């Protein structure tokens, strides 16, 4: 899952390079060791599964966000689009009378559509992505409330299945892994994925090299919308219902995960593996603070400090390496 191209002899995994490219990992490991020492409840099989499930929504959102940030944009609408997709799916099923699997696909389509609109507004309408997606945040949340009239809607069994188990394995973890593989494949192995780095790194150079910059931007936001829809359906599956306020404010978590994972908001950098580590940092802190029963007021203080530290460790590590 590394963006740098591996040398020909690919058999031996290059640990040093992996670590160097996955800075926040050090922060995450430190965090985990601290929690392991602090509470015996942390490092249990069950808790690790819990963490896996809890990270799924934010991580899937953040994977989609990674495309956007790599290409030099930002997407504030992912939380609202997640809610809108899940709610639309619920509505298609409950009021529209569609079969469950069609309702599920309908939800994904809504996310894809919302993302595409973001992309068109940014690429062709020339709206800064911050504004285009802020507008979408408002519109999507509003539509979610309109559709639901402010009430939760029960989801189809097919959607609930996303929140369930297959055998002993929680579905959210399965989906998380699949989403990571697909996202990583897209970003690293396909031409369009590689082009995202070019657009984010130097849009003018990309344009002069004949890359279809606008189409790439639309794709990037469309993917973010699609991943947001998946995250929304996953969340609805876990809750057995689509919530009007689902995923509110998750956009900041998703962006934070991507940035903690080593991406830069000015574009051209970022990796799915990094984003995954970033999402884990956020979820592990919250999980740990719950286990330690830190009071909710202090929890926020500690979360802030740990985010700063996790990224700070990475910055420090890079500095010593360079000098």
């Amino acid at each position, binding site marked *: 899952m590394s963006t740098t191209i591996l040398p020909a002899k690919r058999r031996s995994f290059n640990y040093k390079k992996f670590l160097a490219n996955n800075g926040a990992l050090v922060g995450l490991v430190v965090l985990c060791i601290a929690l392991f020492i602090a509470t015996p409840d942390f490092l249990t099989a069950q808790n690790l599964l819990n963490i896996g499930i809890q990270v799924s929504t934010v991580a899937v959102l953040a994977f989609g966000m990674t495309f956007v940030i790599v290409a030099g944009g930002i997407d504030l609408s992912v939380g609202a689009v997640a809610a809108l997709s899940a709610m639309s799916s619920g509505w298609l099923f409950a009021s529209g009378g569609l079969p469950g699997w069609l309702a599920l696909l309908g939800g994904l389509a809504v996310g894809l559509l919302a993302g595409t609109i973001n992309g068109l507004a940014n690429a062709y309408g020339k709206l800064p992505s911050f504004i285009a997606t802020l507008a979408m945040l408002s519109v999507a949340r509003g539509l979610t409330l309109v559709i639901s*009239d402010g009430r939760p809607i029960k989801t189809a069994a097919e959607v609930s299945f996303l929140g369930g188990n297959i055998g002993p394995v929680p579905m959210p973890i399965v989906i998380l892994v699949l989403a990571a593989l697909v996202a990583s494949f897209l970003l690293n192995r396909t031409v369009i994925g590689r082009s995202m780095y070019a657009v984010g790194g130097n849009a003018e150079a990309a344009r002069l090299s004949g890359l279809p910059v606008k189409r790439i931007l639309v794709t990037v936001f469309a993917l973010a919308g699609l991943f947001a829809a998946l995250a929304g359906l996953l969340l609805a599956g876990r809750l057995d219902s689509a*919530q009007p306020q689902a995923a509110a404010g998750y956009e900041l978590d998703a962006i934070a995960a991507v940035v903690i994972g080593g991406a830069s908001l000015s574009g051209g950098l970022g990796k799915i593996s990094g984003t995954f580590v970033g999402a884990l940092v956020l979820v592990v802190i919250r999980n740990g603070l719950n286990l330690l029963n830190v009071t909710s007021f202090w929890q926020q203080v500690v979360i802030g400090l740990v985010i700063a530290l996790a990224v700070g460790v990475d910055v420090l590590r890079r500095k010593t390496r360079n000098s």
Partner: protein
Amino acid sequence: RGGGGEASGDKIVMAISTLNNPFFVELRDGAQAAAKDAGVQLNIVDAQNDSATQANQLATAASGSTKAVIVNPVDSDAAASSVNALLKAGIPVIGVDRTVNGADLDSLVASDNVAGGRQAADELAKAMGEKGSVIQLQGVSGTSASRDRGAGFEEGMKAYPGITVVAKQTANFDRAAALDVTTNLMQSNPGVTGLFAENDEMALGAIQALGAKAGTEVSVVGFDGTSDGLAAIKAGTLVATIAQQPAELGKLAVELAVKAIKGEKIEKNVPVEVVSVTKTNVGDFAK
């Protein structure tokens, strides 16, 4: 000001703290139905849980052709100056669900959250056989609903020395947050046999987290009596909920506002029952 005679077509502004919550949606529905019956125009504004937005909305209301205002404050203290400005302009103000501290409301229609918290303690203790350990899920930090219910619950629990509250965490009145927080808390407190959530949304998230344990090994008590909550009681996963009657709150508020516009005298305090709903009486509430 509209003294006597026809109230028809008069504009009433209803400032609601948030509509992103089924409780307030039901309150709004009750109010709208009543407005239709009375033939008045009801403008509903939603502050999305932000006191400053609400202050803006109340100021905007004062500048229109508003005849009366119904306010469901985001925060009881913060609303005072805006409400006083309305009262000074001669516009009657009726509080609903939450009071306004430091303003002489024409009337207040509310259920008592502190009492509700106490009732929740009683129901939970009963279900747990007055012993064991309890998790408490708190609402959005700093909201009066969370504060008052928490205070009532704590007070109520004093009567049951056999029960200890082992963990208190916020889940922001949100179902998804409650799912994760409960999962985590069960990890560090596996022996817990009771859970109090400061609203039904969180209770439902907790039930999701508890899975088969909900209603068997762990007793869950919620607050609000939303339709999902009542369904959970029927299903046996939720032991009790402290039902408010949001539609009734909304309806009474509008009726009082209409009377105030006509210049009729209205009661200062209109309490609405808070009812402990369990499996035995859920049939009376199901909608």
